[in-house]
């Protein structure tokens, strides 16, 4: 019996793209939350954390309203790319992004906040701009924790089910990701396929977790921690 590998490739593609986007947006947000004080900072933090606690269907519903074909954002997207966003694989990327970014922001903020403030003060007193401080000092110093957070974000975006189903749907060979394919296989009594897919997802998640753990623990002592 031949297995359709499309869901696996789609899931990996979605996860990679959304992790890159999440890292770009999430690290900057986390750095601002860790370093700046401004009005409404904690409100912003709560807003970013919200997707972590909302039921996926609720989040999916919001996104559907926000990005649907009748919404201004949906119109904008359609006029730029010539096709609607919802119920395409790109929508699955958006779903994964909302699913994984909060986790990344949370852990990256903690990583940035654990950097000794004197490094940031030193960089500023030496005339560094905020961007230079971010790239040359904060990011390298928090590198290990941030890579760990990114690995976790990748694993999480690989496994999204609810939000993806709501805004990307379940169109075989177009928007059907691994998590949804497993559900489908179980529903259609295809136990063999379900088992294979479950094992693959579990293996990937395990590997990613092992990497993340290695990055956060420090088997080589402070010497490596500093690098």
């Amino acid at each position, binding site marked *: 019996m031949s297995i359709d590998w499309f869901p696996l490739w789609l899931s990996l593609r979605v996860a990679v793209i959304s992790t890159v986007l999440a890292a770009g947006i999430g690290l900057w947000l986390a750095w601002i939350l860790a370093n700046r004080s401004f009005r409404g900072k904690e409100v912003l933090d709560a807003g970013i954390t919200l997707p972590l606690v909302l039921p996926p269907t609720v989040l999916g519903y919001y996104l559907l309203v926000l990005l649907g074909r009748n919404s201004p954002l949906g119109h904008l997207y359609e006029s730029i790319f010539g096709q609607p966003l919802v119920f395409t694989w790109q929508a699955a990327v958006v779903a994964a992004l909302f699913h994984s970014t909060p986790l990344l922001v949370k852990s990256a903020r903690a990583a940035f906040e654990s950097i*000794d403030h004197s490094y940031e003060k030193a960089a*500023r*007193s030496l005339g560094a701009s905020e961007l230079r401080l971010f790239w040359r000092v904060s990011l390298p110093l928090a590198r290990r924790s941030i890579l760990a957070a990114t690995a976790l974000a990748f694993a999480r975006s690989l496994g999204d089910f609810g939000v993806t189903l709501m805004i990307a749907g379940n169109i075989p060979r177009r928007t059907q990701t691994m998590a949804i394919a497993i559900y489908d296989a179980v529903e259609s009594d295809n136990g063999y396929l379900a088992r294979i897919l479950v094992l693959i997802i579990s293996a990937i998640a395990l590997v990613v977790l092992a990497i993340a753990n290695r990055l956060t623990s420090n088997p080589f002592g402070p010497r490596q921690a500093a690098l």
Partner: protein
Amino acid sequence: MIQARIRKQFAAGRESAGFLLDLEFQAMRGFTVLFGPSGAGKTLTLDCIAGFAHPDEGRILLDDQILFDGAARVCVPPRARSCGYVFQNYALFPHMTLRENLEFAAKRVPRLERHRKIGEMLEKFHLAEVAGRRPYELSGGQKQRCSIARALIGAPRVLLLDEPTRGLDAPLRADLYSVLRQVREEFGIPILLVTHDFEECLELGDEMIVLRDGRAVQAGPPRRVMEQPANVEVARLLGVFNLLPAEIRALDPGRNSSRLRCQDFELTGPYYPGRLIGDHVWLCIRPDLLSAVPSNGRPGMNQIPASLVRTVEKPDRVRLEFASGIAVELERAVVEKYGSVKEWAIEFPQAGLRIL
């Protein structure tokens, strides 16, 4: 030159007392030492100048640039203040080599000169051999020198040093002092140095400001502060004086003399203008200006008998500490001559009896 008037209030919290920093000072080129106990506001003052803390009101002027002006709402960000800051923990970037640390700081040096300038600084601070190493591979003294070199490479207009000798042993301290003196000569900028070590103050300071509870209690050259502490509080902070409560019993301007009662004994001192008989004062005298001889049972003129509690060895002297809280420093040969005597008579020089 730096001119600062800083006022910053911290409200009292549930677990912390309130704090008010209220300070006005000027610092010319050379060393100005901010001296005081922990919690006096020394580091906060540096942070206000560097731009890491914002005063509630006041004005900070560096040469002709306004760094901060509360009334005009001017507050220059730290990166534009050109203040070299040497942190207590050095704050060398751990992921960069020494050379890279200097390169990071040399951003404002013109590109063509940068390489030469970095080489020159590495040479000047004796770091050329270790330039390729990371901070964790260096000794405390090397890290210290590198952080000073890094602070200076962008040609700042003021250098701020936060307790630079903390954690360095005696030989490294001596090295650091000579490095800092060289910096004073070559860079010709004001150097503000925070310390709670009075010896360091004497060693380096051109001027000193004694801080206590966020206020300046005295300012002036360290030697003058030592010779004339403004009040008993300053004398206590310097930590080098015997401070004994005394009462004025007689004043004779004609013979330029006075009589003081101290620890139930009468001492003769000089005439104290502006004091009255019956005033309670503090007798303030350095241990090395006192002398002591073994007691013969009857204290003589200007002597107070005291029993020895312990002796402390100093590099060239011996410090005798007595039960009444008085300390006397004598030359070692003198102490050895007398052997292990328990009861002593402490002699107070008449002319040197200073009161506060």
